[in-house]
């Protein structure tokens, strides 16, 4: 579809509806104008900026034979990069699941000084540019840094090791679990807990048997979002990672390296694997959100 072609919404009939409107709404018509043109522009813009560029990635991959593709994505360096990216993202998402649940619970259920400010701070990883986060975390966790200096005597090296990657991935995934859990906890009907208590459940039983099942889908949604974000993360990781091939080299960095070597096919093949993985995660997140909505009774 292109902007230049006359849009369907231009031809209004006597009842003020467009031909497309009529085709789509045999029963319910809308009196509000502009459906054809706004949907047309939306689809055009979406195609130009998102769909065609991403489609080009798959088209480029099609130039490779299946065996070439397979040998690129199962090469030692690529395979290790996938393991590092997906493995550490999983660990980071698990850490965020635990601490996110704790933080979300504290923010919704308890009162403490500075609560509103703490709540606002949660979004820092969304707002702070990744390169800034990257150099700040590296400085903080370097052997002469505030935290790295404390860990060094214990024999724990963080900066320029896989542990550093983990720290960066925890940082960028931190808000997701908190922000998906908060609204569900806030909307939780207090009568459910009171009923559980009246029926003789102790507090721990109420939390694990009554509250946990209700908030579980939202926790898993946050977990999946944090995982998805971590898998693709680049900016905050490359400064702290050390970027040693097969040890601390993440998959997005390997794409950049192959691109700088003008090995477009390699870069594209690795990117396609990453993109397919994000589609699968996105699908899972959609499912989880539906499940969450069904369980909490929201439309």
């Amino acid at each position, binding site marked *: 579809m292109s902007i230049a072609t006359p849009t369907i919404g231009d031809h209004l009939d006597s009842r003020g509806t467009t031909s497309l409107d009529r085709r*789509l709404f045999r029963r319910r018509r*809308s009196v*509000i104008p*502009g*459906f054809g043109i*706004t*949907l047309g522009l*939306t689809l055009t*813009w*979406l195609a130009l900026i*998102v769909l065609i*560029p991403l489609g*080009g*990635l798959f088209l*480029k991959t099609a130039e490779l034979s299946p065996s070439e593709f397979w040998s690129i994505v199962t090469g030692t360096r690529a395979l290790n990069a996938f393991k590092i990216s997906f493995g550490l993202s999983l660990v980071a998402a698990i850490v965020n699941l635990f*601490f996110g649940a704790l*933080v979300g619970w504290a923010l919704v259920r*308890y*009162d403490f000084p500075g609560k509103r400010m*703490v709540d*606002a701070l949660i*979004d*820092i990883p*969304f*707002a*702070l*540019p*990744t*390169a*800034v*986060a990257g*150099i*700040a975390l590296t400085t*903080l966790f370097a052997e002469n840094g505030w*935290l790295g200096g404390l860990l060094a005597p214990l024999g724990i090296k963080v900066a320029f090791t896989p542990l550093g990657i983990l720290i960066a991935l925890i*940082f960028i995934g931190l808000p997701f679990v908190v922000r*998906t859990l*908060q609204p569900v906890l*806030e909307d939780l009907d*207090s009568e459910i807990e*009171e009923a559980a*208590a009246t029926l003789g459940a102790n*507090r721990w039983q109420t939390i694990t048997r009554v509250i946990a099942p209700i908030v579980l889908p939202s926790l898993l*949604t946050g977990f999946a979002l944090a995982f998805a974000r971590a*898998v*693709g*993360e680049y*900016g905050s990781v490359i400064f702290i990672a050390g970027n040693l091939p097969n040890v601390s080299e993440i998959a*997005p*960095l390997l794409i950049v390296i192959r*691109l700088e070597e003008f090995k477009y096919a390699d870069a594209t093949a690795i*990117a396609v694997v*990453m*993109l397919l993985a*994000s*589609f699968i995660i*996105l699908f899972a*997140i*959609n499912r989880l*959100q539906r499940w969450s909505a069904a369980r909490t009774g929201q439309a």
Partner: protein
Amino acid sequence: MAGAVAPLARRARASQSAGPRAIRSEPAVVRWLVIGVSLAFLGIFLVLPLVTVFVQAFSRGVMPYLDALTDPDAVAAIRLTLLVAAISVALNLAFGLVAAWSIAKFEFPGKSVLITLIDLPFSVSPVISGLVFVLLFGAQGFFGAWLQAHDIRIIFALPGIVLATLLVTFPFVARELIPLMQEQGTQEEEAAVSLGASGLQTFFRVTLPNVKWALLYGVLLCNARAMGEFGAVAVVSGHIRGETNTMPLHIEILYNEYQFMAAFAVASLLALLALVTLIAKVVLERFVEAER
């Protein structure tokens, strides 16, 4: 960035809940343990990095800080960042309004698929968001030969940086507006139209005033991400100093040259932008809540 996390409108609504009652709370020891562990976690992962940025930026005093910011390459990076952000925010603002109008005010098949596709850039690695444009417009790309023949530069130039930024920030405005406009329904617009208002009049006099705070928040988020984008821009920019270096790329170059103080000086500007965005979010949330 924000991913599928509930947008402003939804969060504002959810934040009025009943206070804790004795039967719904835990022993004081447990409470303070949970609060303590939470604050320690947030302190280490959120507060310390932010403090580090400003401490390092001013580690040699105010004058060197200002010198680092007025360095010609830094000034060029700041100007390019502002230009790229202005273009991409304006385009995404227009798109967000148009998309939200068509999705929130009308019913049509495939709507949920369309919303998923608009959200898609959130789940794509920034590096891939840059790579796709190199594959299209780079020297070896689909249109590479044609562009070279006509002497048009997209990759390693401003258009490439704008395109990569556009893709990364694509969903921000739309996804703040869509849920709010869906919730507000179509009654006010229908009333306006039946009283004789034109489509544009209805939009500017009825719809826009209803969504102004959410729209402003979407623009702020979009702007923060546009100015701070690193991965996607790094792939398409070519790192030409004074020409195609945005602020995040300039930070990377300074840092890799061990000019730590200068790197943190430029970084402090972006950190400040992040703080302003967060404060604006809190304020705008209250406005949305008050108008409800």
